């Protein structure tokens, strides 16, 4: 799946996308993620953020470099804020959570490999060779 195919498919399914980010914001985000000792933003995710700074579909969310909100609802936290709250979870060591839905969490590691995690115990349920497939499944899993 290419990034363009991902965006087109999600758009057709009714996803909401936050505003694109400037590369400078992603550099700053990486500096902040490094201070948390979690994985920094892989290239494909940086490219995704330059098209949209986060996404939402049903109960599925992909966190962006900045918090974003829709129709005055409670803002969807940034990827940094989400991972700041999770620093005490040893099972996440070296991983960065980039998305969630009501059943699963989604993470990438320092090599950029994406995984689907059980939201009960963080057991790895699936590994992805295609990161855009992981982003797709994170959001489409929330389309109930």
């Amino acid at each position, binding site marked *: 799946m290419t990034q363009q195919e991902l965006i087109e498919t999600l758009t057709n399914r009714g996803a909401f996308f936050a505003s694109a980010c400037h590369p400078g914001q992603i550099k700053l985000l990486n500096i902040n993620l490094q201070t948390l000792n979690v994985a920094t933003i892989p290239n494909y995710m940086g490219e995704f953020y330059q098209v949209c700074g986060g996404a939402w579909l049903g109960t599925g969310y992909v966190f962006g470099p900045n918090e974003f909100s829709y129709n005055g609802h409670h803002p969807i936290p940034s990827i940094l804020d989400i991972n700041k709250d999770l620093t005490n979870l040893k099972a996440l060591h070296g991983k960065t959570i980039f998305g969630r839905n009501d059943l699963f969490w989604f993470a990438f590691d320092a090599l950029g490999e994406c995984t689907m995690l*059980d939201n009960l115990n963080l057991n790895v349920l699936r590994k992805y060779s295609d990161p855009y497939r992981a982003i797709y499944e994170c959001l489409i899993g929330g389309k109930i």
Partner: protein
Amino acid sequence: MQWTQDFAEKRLSDMQMPNIPLTATQPTPVAVSPDWFPKYKKLCHEFMRSLTDSVQELALMNLSRDEFMELIMGRTLPVNLSIRFRTPLLWGGAMDVDNLFMCFTFPHSQCLDRFIIEQAGNETVWLPSPEKKIYLPLHSTLAGNGGNATADRLSQFAATMNAGRRP
């Protein structure tokens, strides 16, 4: 470390959700049917339609009229709302409306995920199980008596919806 009920309640209180009752469960994984996901989606829609009896809580959720209608028609879940299992399917929870509750995704559902994950590996896990179908934080439920126009309007919509469903 095995949590006591007191510790679990304190942890929830630290997460600003002190008013959620807890139930203890032994997290023994059970087999889940292969077609669980379509059944889960169907159940979520059934749950949304059942919320016509929870208008008082819905009125405190700052939903627009369209979002409210889409929700109780069982069509679309508004942004920042989650439907959670009281007892997860994987731990023997029933695929039943009574085993679900709704809350805000951020911050509540995200924090409740963390609350359960922090207990991973424990023999007994404390699970949040609100009394009502919709969990609202304490400060929402203690809101002053500032008028009931919204609740009345939403009650009217809900009553119309229910009347339309009767055979």
